[in-house]
């Protein structure tokens, strides 16, 4: 029994030493990692294709610490007035001790899906709440989670969308009107805009498509002329605009 008691005493002492040394060495390891240029973020790359918005952040980490870094992930939650618009999660590979790792943190989200749920974002600028969190585990034992939140401004791609100067040429059966808007979004608009005109009975009198190529931050203004079906034409009606299959605008028109 005496031997067992002594053995237990040694095991307890050894485990206490490990328990006390581990957190101290983890902190030292992180301090070594934080010093110098062991971590760096390169310029983020935005891209928009097929309605999918991608944000790629290339970064490098030179793990000069004593321990491997695992479970590295970045989570970004974007919300507006407590309504979650998008949640983006990117898992990064493990970073073994003594190695330098180049990784790309890529977030991808379908803009169409977002705009389907939050159409107002297409035409109204808004303040969005962003919750960002970085999670990682050192020595497979101690996990760190650094979270921050901030507000960012969302620029609507069709801010101040207006239709004006509506006129109808009874001889040529052409309805003309002007469209204007400002592209406040950080991406260019290069998808077509579908215009549908309805009479006062709700019957479609015309449908056409307008090709758009509006760079970010630019204004758009154009006079549109569409042929209408004279048999269905009335003195008033309404106009609908669609972008990527989503109705973004509806307004009544009346001929003077």
């Amino acid at each position: 029994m005496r031997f067992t008691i002594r053995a237990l005493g040694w095991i307890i002492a050894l485990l206490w030493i490990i328990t006390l040394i581990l957190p101290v060495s983890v902190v030292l390891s992180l301090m070594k990692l934080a010093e110098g240029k062991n971590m760096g973020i390169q310029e983020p790359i935005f891209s928009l294709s097929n309605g999918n918005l991608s944000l790629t952040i290339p970064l490098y980490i030179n793990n000069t610490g004593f321990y491997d870094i695992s479970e590295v992930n970045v989570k970004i939650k974007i919300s507006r007035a407590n309504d979650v618009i998008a949640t983006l999660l990117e898992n990064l590979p493990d970073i073994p001790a003594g190695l330098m790792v180049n990784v790309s943190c890529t977030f991808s989200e379908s803009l169409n899906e977002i705009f389907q749920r939050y159409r107002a974002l297409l035409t109204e600028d808004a303040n969005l709440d962003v919750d960002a969190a970085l999670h990682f585990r050192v020595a497979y034992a101690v996990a760190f989670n650094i979270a921050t939140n901030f507000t960012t401004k969302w620029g609507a791609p069709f801010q101040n969308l207006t239709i004006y100067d509506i006129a109808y040429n009874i001889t040529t059966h052409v309805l003309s009107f002007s469209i204007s808007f400002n592209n406040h979004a950080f991406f260019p608009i290069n998808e077509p805009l579908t215009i549908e005109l309805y009479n006062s009975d709700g019957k479609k009198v015309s449908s056409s498509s307008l090709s758009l190529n509006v760079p970010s931050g630019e204004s758009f203004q154009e006079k549109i002329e569409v042929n209408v079906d004279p048999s269905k034409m009335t003195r008033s009606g309404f106009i609908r605009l669609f972008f990527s299959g989503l109705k973004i605008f509806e307004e009544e028109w009346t001929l003077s």
Partner: protein
Amino acid sequence: MSELVPRPNRRKLGLRIARAFLLTAASGIFWLIIWFLASMLLANFPNYQMLFTVLAWGLLFFTFAIALAEGTIYKYLLIIIRAFFLIVYLAYATNNGILTINFENFALTVEFLPLLALMIVINLLDIARGLLQAIEFAAQSPKD
């Protein structure tokens, strides 16, 4: 002769108390150093001061009591109680191994469940050792 009997006991008790005080004072200095070192890292954790003070005073009390109970079975009983106290208090004070510090716009959460589990295992081993020591002590001194 009967007047001479209590003298060695009193002296023995006095020595035991003095030894207990010395051990507690040494422990106090040790905890003071730990407090200085830990304050550099943990000063921003909420209630750190209060939680550390309770832990340090609790362990100082046990150091004193265990030293005072030297040579009796109560020493092992106190060792077991101390281990239980550490298990419960460490789990409570560390919020089950998840601590959060809030800076201006940042929140840093440190999760060290494996370390807490290790500390609990150590204290369970301490309880087992205390029990074995108590059994051994009882077997050796039937008077107790």
